[in-house]
């Protein structure tokens, strides 16, 4: 066979080889796509059931409001030689260990004049209220007073809270037989 015939034979074989390689590449590509679809599709085909639950509990902050105060006048036999006070007392709030409380008593007259008083010491849950504490004139001292108590609490961590006002109690001075003023506790 001449070299020309050999070269012609070789050139005829080249397209066939190239076609075969292309067919193989195409088959590999198709197989890759199919494999990817199977893997991805199988991954997303999983599903499971869920059950969502919860627990709850109610939380509130501590109540540091003092108890509603009481008013107790001095016994009558000691009220004819000088002006006499009434004892204003209240139940302290329940506080955690290490917390301290001081108190402020607020008196509002029936003419809306407001005065505040601090027990001595300030942590004492009571004070004596004299007629002179609620006015500079006899007329003012005879006015009806509405009294409430607030607590200022310092907690162990340093936080300082002031309570809302307590319930109220009334006090009013009255003249004694000898024109002294005795603080009383009207109903």
């Amino acid at each position, binding site marked *: 066979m001449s070299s020309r015939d050999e070269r012609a034979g070789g050139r005829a074989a080249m397209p066939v080889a190239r076609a075969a390689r292309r067919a193989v590449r195409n088959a590999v590509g198709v197989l890759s796509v199919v494999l990817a679809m199977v893997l991805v599709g199988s991954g997303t085909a999983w599903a499971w*059931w869920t059950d969502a639950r919860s627990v709850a509990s109610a*939380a509130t902050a501590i109540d540091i409001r003092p108890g509603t105060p009481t008013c107790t006048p001095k016994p009558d036999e000691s009220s004819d030689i000088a002006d006499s006070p009434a004892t204003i007392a209240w139940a302290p709030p329940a506080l955690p260990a290490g917390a301290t409380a001081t108190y402020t008593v607020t008196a509002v007259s029936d003419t809306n004049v407001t005065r505040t008083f601090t027990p001595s010491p300030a942590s004492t849950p009571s004070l004596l209220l004299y007629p002179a504490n609620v006015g500079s004139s006899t007329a003012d001292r005879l006015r009806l007073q509405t009294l409430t108590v607030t607590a200022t609490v310092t907690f162990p961590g340093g936080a300082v*809270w*002031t309570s809302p006002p307590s319930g109220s109690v009334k006090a009013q001075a009255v003249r004694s037989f000898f024109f002294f003023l005795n603080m009383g506790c009207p109903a």
Partner: protein
Amino acid sequence: MPPRLRPALVACVAVVLLLVGSTTAYAAWARSATVAAGAVTGGSFSGTVTWSTAPNLAGMHPGETRVGVVQVARTASTNGRWVYAVGAPTAAPSGTVTAASTALAGQLVVTVYTGATFTGTTCAGTPATLGVASPVQALGAVVRHCVAVRLLPTAPSTVQGGSVAVTVPITLENRSTN
């Protein structure tokens, strides 16, 4: 036709004949029958999430921590292993929303721990990773987590009178992997 295309054409024709011819070369006998349908019912999956030790959160003062223990259990009436995930706890005003309850909700910190017990007001373990599935649990397993609720030491006086619901969400899933 260029000589180099002839083998490709032959191959294509052969494939086509194979596909077409293979479908027309078959003939088949057939017979049909009907099977009576039986009842098909769905399964069920449920669990329980409860307080095994309920925390007492009434009357908290600034800086105070109160603790409880939450219990997660799978109802042992169906098959399958399961996992669960603890969601982010919440503190939200309960009932009528007031300024005090809104203020209180913002001053509470709720932490779920990996440990199931506590000493005093300290939970065992470390803070749990939220939203991540637990290890696979066996059917009938009971799991517990300590929960700590703390009122920040800097909580202002305005939280007085507020009422808040503290909630710990937990989701169970009936899958055998995590």
